[in-house]
Structure formats: structure tokens, C-alpha cells
């Protein structure tokens, strides 16, 4: 399962409305709730927050990759939120974060979870692609960017 296969318009939100970290996490989880990907919102929020308390997943260059293993999902699941104005996600460079990849996986799917995180890490390394994502103005536009021409 590749990231491109996990990304669909129903799991992408542009723009995110939240401005602070706890609200961003909740808004990302709400995307998955609305898409029918999870059925226990509070359990997921708690799992993601618990992971974030150990170390922030706010990376450099405006990207954040909150993630967690949780029984609240049956399969590997991703949500992508874009905040053109950015928000403070305790990023390592102290700069606002703009792209948020929320990745959830059941505890027994470490292999696929690792592969998906690895894909996101590579995407994060592509400044040009991240710039395109950051400038996207709709979920449809984001999905198009992930798809082959």
C-alpha cells in the first residue's frame, strides 16, 4: 500500500482551520472520523497526543508527521491537512508547520506502517513537491499532485 493509494479527497482538507497544535491534531482526526475510517475519535486523539508528548513530529521545512499505533483502525490510514498560514507544531526549526500527514496503523501492521512513514519522509525531502502541496487550494488539487499525469 503506497501513500498515493491512501490519499483520496475525503482524507484531505485544505485549508485547515486550526491554529494551535492540539486543535490541529483533533481536526486531522476529525477528517478520518468524517471519512468513516475510524470509529473512536477520542482514542485516536489520545494515542496521537501521547506520541507527541514523547517527541514532537514537527519536522523542518513546514512538515509535521503525527502518527500512532492504535486499535481504533483496522488498516493503515492517512489524513493530510494543509495550513497555508501555518501553525506552531513545536517544529525542530521553530518555524510554523504547513503540511500535516497524520498516519495511523493497527499495532500488528508495523511493516506497512513503516513503509508508509518512509514514503512520507521521502516526500518531506522533496522541497519542490512540498511547495506544490502547500500551494494547493483544494483536496482535488492535492490528490492530482499525487497521481500520475
Amino acid at each position: 500500500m503506497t501513500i498515493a493509494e491512501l490519499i483520496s479527497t475525503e482524507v484531505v482538507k485544505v485549508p485547515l482551520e486550526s491554529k494551535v497544535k492540539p486543535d490541529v491534531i483533533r481536526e486531522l482526526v476529525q477528517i478520518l472520523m468524517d471519512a468513516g475510517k475510524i470509529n473512536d475519535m477520542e482514542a485516536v486523539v489520545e494515542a496521537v497526543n501521547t506520541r507527541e508528548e514523547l517527541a514532537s513530529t514537527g519536522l523542518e521545512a513546514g512538515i509535521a508527521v503525527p502518527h500512532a499505533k492504535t486499535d481504533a483502525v483496522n488498516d493503515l490510514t492517512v489524513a493530510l491537512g494543509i495550513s497555508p498560514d501555518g501553525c506552531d507544531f513545536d517544529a525542530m526549526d521553530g518555524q510554523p508547520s504547513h503540511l500535516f500527514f497524520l498516519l495511523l496503523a493497527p499495532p500488528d501492521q508495523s511493516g506497512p506502517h513503516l513503509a508508509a512513514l518512509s514514503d512520507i519522509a521521502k516526500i518531506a525531502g522533496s522541497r519542490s513537491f512540498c511547495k506544490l502541496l502547500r500551494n494547493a487550494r483544494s483536496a482535488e488539487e492535492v490528490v492530482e499532485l499525487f497521481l500520475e499525469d
Partner: protein
Amino acid sequence: MSPVKKILVYIDGTEQSITAAQYAICLSKFTGAELTAQYVINTKALDDLLKARIFFKQEQEEYARDLEADAKRYLDHVLELARVKGVVIDTKSTSGSVNQEILNEVKDGRYDLLVIGELSRTRSRRDEFYNEVERALRSVPCSVLVVKDDEHVWQMYSSLI
């Protein structure tokens, strides 16, 4: 003379790789070829995620332990799939980058066929670039069989005496 003498099947825990294992077991039974199943604990990805600071150290170690447990679980499963069909299978768990570990095993073991599960439907040029198993497919010196149609394979495996 059998067209293949040594088969390597790559297992990554996906349903597609288990289907590939079923196919490889059938092929081994039909041809008498030696069969080995390999699982790669992707420590390269673990290291990359630590460097990218998506993981912190303890998290990396936790995932490594999870992957080791996955390797044992899936290889044990494949071992059982072969055993019930009277096929002898060797299992190997190695660590490193998926592409490189498969390539090393194929070369060192002098396999003449690599069997892999159906690759994800490519929807993005980026995925094509990133897919580790696809890299292995391109780089190994032996023939590669990509197993598709899980229902057909299951029927073939089930009917194997």
C-alpha cells in the same frame, strides 16, 4: 530437467506476499525446486526515520522489535503453509534495505527464480521511484515472477495434494 532449481520468495507480511508464497509452494511441489522464504527487517527505513526525526530512539527500537516479531510470525505462517502440502521450505530473516537484502540473497544463494507478490497499483511516479520491491525486481540477476490473481492461486494451492 526442471526449469528452476532454487526459488526465493519474498515475504513482507502483505496478503500479496502470502499469495506469492502459496504460488511458490505449488511451483516447488511441481518442479522439485528448493524453496526459501525471505523476510527483510527494513532497518534502513528505521534509520532514515530516525535521521528525519519522525522517530525518536526508543520508538525506533520498539518498531525494530515489532518487525522482528512480524518476521517470525509471517515466516512461521509460510513454513506451515508449506508443511501441510509436504513441501520443504527454508526461511531467512535478514536486516537492512529491502532491495539490497533481496539482491544479496539472490546472488549468494544462486537462486534462479525470485517470486514476489503483486506490486501496488502504481498511481504515482513517486511511488514507482520509491518502491523497494520493484527496485529488487529490476536489479536481481535471475528471472522474477510477479504473482497475481489471489483467487486462482488459492484454488491451485488448495487443490495441491
